[in-house]
């Protein structure tokens, strides 16, 4: 009860289904990640007191802000939650400085102006204090919204995609400011983002939200490398998700053998999974190694697989390559390789390639997968996405 930090439990059927549990300690930053329409903004709105869920409980530093059963429901202005709205929601009749000053009610009037200017400097907007929102670019407006949310010295900070309209270098600066601020303020910070890099970079913990339900929480590293389910894996952008069957365990070599169509893959030793179980498994695109054409290299004995390049996209220094693996229908295997490596090996669409799936990087998800023949990929991404959006509607 007198527990520090933010504790949130939300239950609701309509209009937007919610079934979410979140905890965020003081000074902690929790990233809330999920597809468009998952309910991320709605969760923030519930915490800020702008939406009353049907049931649940929200406490902050021991104070009960909302309790569906107890009939407690603090109004927004008494909750002391600083919020950056996805739509910015600036006050159109106030200048940038006025917008920030409006949230400085706790300071004596003569100090507000200096503080507002300092906040605007922090978000890289010095010189634009006198502009009205209509005279600012999208990214500039967004930064005013960030400054305003910080101004209040809130008990929790709720950031709804606060950097989506800001260019990368300004964003770097804002990241640093935010980190500073967290050290100073020691309050829970909730960050809604769809940028996993951003989440990995900034957040202490990450929470996956899907159809209003929290799927998994943990450190970003944990969630991204060890997603708890196929659903979660897809949300953290794991592209190589397949199903297979546990063939057995080799306690001597400390490997577990995974049957994937005609292939028998060595994977980290996990004797607790019974042989014969159908499982979903994944491998990061960076851990699919391309065999060099000219000479064999270190990892070539590890789970070799052959296929044909079906897609080749250059992304700056690196390239994303999709390989149709022999014997595996439908879904290609994706790999990311350095651009020069791709060029050296003359990767092109239609070319035959040999790759290795690094054994230590193969991750088998907990829980049995029903149906699915062992050789198929764990259902395609596209069709699914359409349901994602329609889902909460029904």
């Amino acid at each position: 009860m007198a527990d520090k930090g933010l504790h949130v439990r939300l239950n609701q059927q309509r209009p937007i289904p919610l079934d979410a549990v979140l905890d965020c300690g003081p000074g902690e930053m929790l990233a809330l990640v999920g597809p468009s329409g998952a309910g991320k903004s709605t969760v923030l709105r519930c915490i800020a007191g702008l939406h009353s869920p049907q049931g649940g409980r929200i406490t902050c530093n021991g104070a009960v802000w909302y309790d569906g059963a107890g009939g407690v429901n603090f109004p927004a202005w008494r909750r002391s939650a600083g919020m950056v709205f996805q739509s910015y929601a600036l006050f159109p009749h106030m200048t940038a400085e006025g917008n920030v000053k409006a949230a400085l009610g706790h300071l004596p009037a003569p100090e507000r102006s200096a503080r507002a200017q300092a906040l605007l400097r922090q978000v890289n907007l010095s010189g634009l204090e006198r502009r009205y929102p209509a005279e600012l670019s999208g990214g500039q407006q967004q930064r005013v919204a960030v400054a305003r949310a910080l101004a209040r010295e809130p008990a929790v900070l709720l950031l709804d995609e606060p950097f989506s309209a800001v260019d990368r270098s300004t964003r770097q600066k804002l990241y640093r400011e935010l980190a500073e601020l967290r050290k100073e303020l020691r309050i829970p910070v909730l960050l809604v983002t769809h940028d996993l890099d951003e989440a990995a970079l900034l957040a202490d913990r990450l929470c996956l939200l899907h159809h209003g339900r929290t799927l998994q929480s943990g450190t970003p590293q944990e969630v991204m490398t060890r997603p708890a389910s196929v659903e979660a894996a897809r949300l953290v952008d794991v592209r190589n998700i397949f199903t297979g069957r546990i063939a057995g365990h080799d306690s001597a070599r400390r490997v577990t053998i995974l049957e994937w169509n005609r292939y028998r893959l060595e994977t980290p030793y996990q004797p607790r999974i019974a042989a014969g179980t159908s499982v979903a498994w994944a491998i990061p695109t960076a851990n699919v190694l391309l065999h060099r054409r000219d000479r064999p290299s270190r990892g070539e004995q590890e789970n070799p697989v052959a296929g044909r390049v079906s897609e080749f996209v250059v992304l700056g220094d690196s390239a994303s390559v999709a390989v149709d693996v022999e014997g595996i229908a439908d879904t290609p295997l994706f790999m990311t390789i350095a651009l020069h490596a791709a060029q050296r090996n003359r990767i092109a669409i239609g070319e035959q390639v040999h790759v290795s799936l690094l054994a230590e990087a193969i991750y088998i998800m907990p829980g049995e997968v029903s149906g699915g023949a062992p050789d198929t990929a764990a259902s395609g991404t596209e069709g699914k996405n359409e349901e994602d959006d329609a889902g909460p509607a029904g």
Partner: protein
Amino acid sequence: MDWPALALSLRLGIFTVLLLFPIGIAAARALAWRRFRGKGLAEALITLPLVLPPTVLGFYLLVAFGGNSPLGHAFEALFGHTLVFSFSGLLVASVIVNLPFAIQPMQRAFEAIPADVREAAACSGMTPLEVLMRIELPLAWPGIVTGMALTFAHTLGEFGVVLMVGGSIPGETRTLAIAIYDRVQDFDNGAAATMSALLLAISLFALAITYVLSGRIGRRHG
């Protein structure tokens, strides 16, 4: 030139605006944002004073406020004079008559404030009163000014209701509009024209100033 009548008209206009400012804002906000049963009816009722001919409305008010009515009795017991044939009576009548002029434009203005801006204000730690003062009123200001300007102008020109409940007592209930009408009835067109011109000049001046000022406020967040 009937200076006491002019002074009385201005006084009536100003007091009506002062009274209708809070009343209008409260009613307009409730109508703009609350959902309640019979809201359509409430809106229609507020429009009522527009529908009845002013003289008829004045007649009903005369009967309702008159010495024989409970309301009239109560007022007389409290203040020692009758509500009709007094400035207070004019003021009450004027407030009632101007309800639609004041409330309707304000309501539309409050309705036009985006929900997320009001929410952001609450999330900035403003109390509901601060939100009202610093966000809602400034944003609804053009509509509020419209309502107040319509009210002021209409009060200066109001004639039928004042005629019915006022009794044309010089310095007390004889407004400029009535003085002008008297002149017109007397075929004293010269005097009527002078007074009308003055009334017009004052109103035009007041209106032009408010519109220019509120336009300047409005332009900022065009």
